């Protein structure tokens, strides 16, 4: 009886903290392609956060401000760093879709952006998918 009790207690204790995720998941640390004259960057937030590369980072932002003419302006931009290399882009007067995509970013997001030699964002995509949900 004592053995039974001990075994039960052990089993419950071990199980309590060790629920395991078995479903499909991927970590996509940030990767940068091309050069400063044009290229792309991509990665998931979880992938960057858990990367062994301590510089691994991806970010997008939406910034509203009032310019010198008193006009309210909205700009967006993305930045990525991998292995010490940083690439950024900005988009002026972005479309509503661009803004919606960036405000949808959350821990399950995978972000991809392309940039040109002038630092303009030429393409942005935000994917929210289960495999990036850790």
């Amino acid at each position, binding site marked *: 009886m004592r053995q039974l009790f001990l075994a039960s207690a052990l089993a419950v204790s071990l199980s309590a903290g060790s629920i395991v995720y078995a479903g499909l998941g991927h970590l996509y640390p940030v990767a940068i392609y091309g050069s400063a004259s044009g290229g792309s960057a991509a990665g998931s937030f979880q992938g960057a956060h858990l990367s062994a590369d301590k510089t691994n980072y991806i970010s997008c932002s939406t910034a509203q401000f009032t310019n010198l003419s008193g006009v309210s302006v909205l700009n967006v931009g993305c930045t990525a760093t991998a292995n010490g290399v940083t690439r950024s882009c900005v988009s002026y007067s972005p479309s509503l879709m661009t803004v919606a995509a960036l405000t949808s970013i959350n821990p*399950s997001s995978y972000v991809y952006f392309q940039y040109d030699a002038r630092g303009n964002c030429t393409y942005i995509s935000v994917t929210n998918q289960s495999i990036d949900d850790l």
Partner: protein
Amino acid sequence: MNKLAIVTALITSLTATVGAYAGAPPLRNPVNIFTANGSSLASGTFDAARHSSDSVQYIGCSMATDTVSSEYVSCFARNSSGATAYCYSSSPTLATIEALAGVNRTSYIFFKLNTTTGKCTEITINDQSTNL
């Protein structure tokens, strides 16, 4: 000793399955794909796909734009049997855009597509605590 082993195994599996949820129990909606009459339907939650016993199923949606004039959205899913469904919309309405802006790990995603064109004909996103 046999009784001991059986009881231990029962308690372990029960505890692992039930977990430590204290609120309304989670609704597990694994990824389902159904095709008939020129349409495919796909649905599922992030959480169920991520907690599934297979390493196959997934579901999600994308929004993409060249930041100026061209934009599209897409949704995609794969079920545990490996069947896939993928749709896109190159002229997303504001309603679609706003719906997809809410996709996150609490989401239940449902989408319907025309199998001839590959276009999304319906997208529904439902965010609720029981999807966790």
